[in-house]
C-alpha cells in the first residue's frame, strides 16, 4: 500500500522531507479524509447505514486533534473535513431551526453516510476485480502461438489489348522492315528509265532535270539513289536518241528535252553537247 497524501492545492503528492517522514507515519495508508472516516467507521463494527455520524465525527476530530498535538503534517483536505464535521456535530446537537432552507443536519449526516457506503462499495468492487483471475498473472494465453504463414500469390496484369498490340507489332516489324529496305535501295535503272520516259513525254522544251527529280523524289533519303539511277538512265536514253542533255559547266544543273523529231536540231541548244 503506497501512501498518497495529496496536497489540497496542487493535487500532487505532498513533498515530505526525509526528516519529517516519521511524522506522517500515522496517516500512511489513508487515501484522504473519506478514507480515514471509513476506517474509523469500520471500527464501530456496525452497518454503515446505521452508523452514528455523531460518534464518527467525534472520533475524527479526536484523531485530528492528536495529530496536531504532535505537529503531524496533515493535508488541507483533512482539516477541511474536520471543520465540516465540527459544524455538522454542532448542528446535530442543537435543536433544528424551524423552516430551514438549507438541508437539515440529519440529511447532511445521511449524505455523509452514503458517501462512505459508496466508497466502501467501490472498494469492494475494486477488490473483487483485482481478485479475478488476471491475464499473465493467473491465466495465460497460448505461450507459443503458431505463425500464420503468408503466401504471396502474384497476380499478373495484362490485357487483351496488350497482347494483340504485342503480337501485331512484332509480326509487322519483321515483315515491314525488309520491304522498306528494298524500296529504299532499289530505284532500279528500269524504274528510272520508265520515269524519265514519262517525263520526256511532256518536256518538249529544255527542262531542268534536277527540278523534275526533286519533285519526283518524295523521301530525301532516296535522293542519292534516284539521282544516280536517273543519270544513268538519261545517258542511256541519249545514246538511244530519245532525249538530249545539256549542262553548261561541271556541277551546273542538267537540262534535258525530248529529242526533236526533225533530227539533230543542235543549233537551238544553249550550249553544245
Amino acid at each position: 500500500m503506497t501512501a498518497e497524501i495529496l496536497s489540497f492545492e496542487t493535487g500532487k503528492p505532498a513533498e515530505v522531507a526525509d526528516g519529517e517522514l516519521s511524522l506522517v507515519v500515522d496517516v500512511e495508508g489513508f487515501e484522504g479524509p473519506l478514507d480515514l472516516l471509513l476506517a474509523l467507521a469500520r471500527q464501530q463494527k456496525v452497518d454503515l447505514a446505521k452508523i452514528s455520524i455523531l460518534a464518527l465525527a467525534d472520533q475524527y476530530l479526536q484523531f485530528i486533534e492528536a495529530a496536531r498535538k504532535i505537529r503531524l503534517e496533515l493535508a488541507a483536505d483533512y482539516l477541511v473535513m474536520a471543520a465540516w464535521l465540527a459544524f455538522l456535530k454542532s448542528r446535530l446537537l442543537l435543536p433544528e431551526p424551524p423552516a430551514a432552507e438549507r438541508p437539515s443536519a440529519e440529511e447532511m449526516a445521511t449524505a455523509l453516510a452514503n458517501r462512505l457506503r459508496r466508497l466502501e462499495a467501490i472498494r469492494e468492487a475494486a477488490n473483487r476485480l483485482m481478485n479475478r483471475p488476471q491475464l499473465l498473472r493467473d491465466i495465460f494465453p497460448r505461450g507459443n502461438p503458431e505463425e500464420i504463414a503468408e503466401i504471396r500469390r502474384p497476380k499478373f496484369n495484362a490485357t487483351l489489348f496488350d497482347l494483340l498490340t504485342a503480337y501485331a507489332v512484332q509480326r509487322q516489324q519483321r515483315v515491314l522492315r525488309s520491304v522498306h529496305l528494298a524500296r529504299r535501295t532499289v530505284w532500279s535503272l528500269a524504274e528510272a528509265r520508265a520515269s524519265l520516259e514519262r517525263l520526256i513525254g511532256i518536256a518538249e522544251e529544255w527542262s531542268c532535270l534536277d527540278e523534275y527529280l526533286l519533285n519526283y523524289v518524295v523521301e530525301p533519303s532516296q535522293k542519292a539513289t534516284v539521282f544516280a539511277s536517273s543519270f544513268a538512265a538519261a545517258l542511256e536514253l541519249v545514246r538511244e536518241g530519245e532525249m538530249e542533255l545539256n549542262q553548261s559547266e561541271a556541277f551546273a544543273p542538267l537540262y534535258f528535252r525530248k529529242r526533236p523529231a526533225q533530227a539533230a536540231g543542235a543549233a537551238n541548244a544553249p550550249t553544245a553537247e
Partner: protein
Amino acid sequence: MASLAERRVQEVEMVDEAEAPVNPQARPEELRILEALLFAATEPLDQSTLAKRMPDGVDVKAALEQLQADYACRGVNLVRVANKWTFRTAGDLSWLMTRETTETRRLSRAAIEVLAIIAYHQPVTRAEIEEIRGVVTSKGTLDVLLETGWIRPRGRRKTPGRPLTFGTTEGFLSQFNIEAIGDLPGLDELKGTGLLDSRLPTGFSVPSPSDDPTLREDEDPLDVGELELALAPAAEPETGEGGGES
C-alpha cells in the same frame, strides 16, 4: 491456383494417414478447425473472423458453444472476452502458472480504486472520480492507468471546462477475463444499492456502466489530435483493432 494448395493438403493427408493411427473424422471438422484456429492465434478472434475460415453452412456460434462446453473442465478453457474468443489456462490453476519472467503490474491502491470507479461508473470525469474518493487524483495515477491500456479518454463532458470522460478498453476486459462490461463482478449488487448513482441520496435511476464507444448525449468527441498526444497509450486498443487483424 487454388489447386496447388489443395494438392499440398492432399500430400499432407496422405502422409498423416500413413503414420497416424487415428481417424480425424472421429471429431466434427468444424470443431477441429475452431480448435486449430483459436490455439494458433495470438489474439482473441471474433465470430465473423472464424466464420471466414469455416466450411460453408456451419453454425459457428453453436460450434463455439459446443467447444466451450468441451473445454470447460479442462486445464485450458475457451473464454469469451470483449465478444471475441480465445483459449486461456483455467483460472483455478493459477498457482501452477507463476512464471518468474512474468512481471505483474503492481498498481497502487489509489490506481486500483480509480480503475474500479472508471469501470463501474464509465463514462466518468476526473472530478466525479474525486467526488467518490473524497480526494484529489494525482496526475501520476491516471498516467499509470493510461499506460496499462486498460482505460482511455473517450470524450469530453458537455459541461463548463469540457472535462475529459474516461472509460475502459477491450484490454481491460481481456486483462480481467470479463466477457462484457455488464459482467463486472458485483455489478448487480452495486446497482441494487443505488450507490452507482453519482447523486446522493440514492435515486431511482441507476446508471449502468457502458464502454460502448458511442458517445452519450452529454459527451463531445475528443478534439482532433488529442489521442496522439499525452494520452496515446490509451488510444492504442482502439486503433489496434484494425492492425491486429491485418
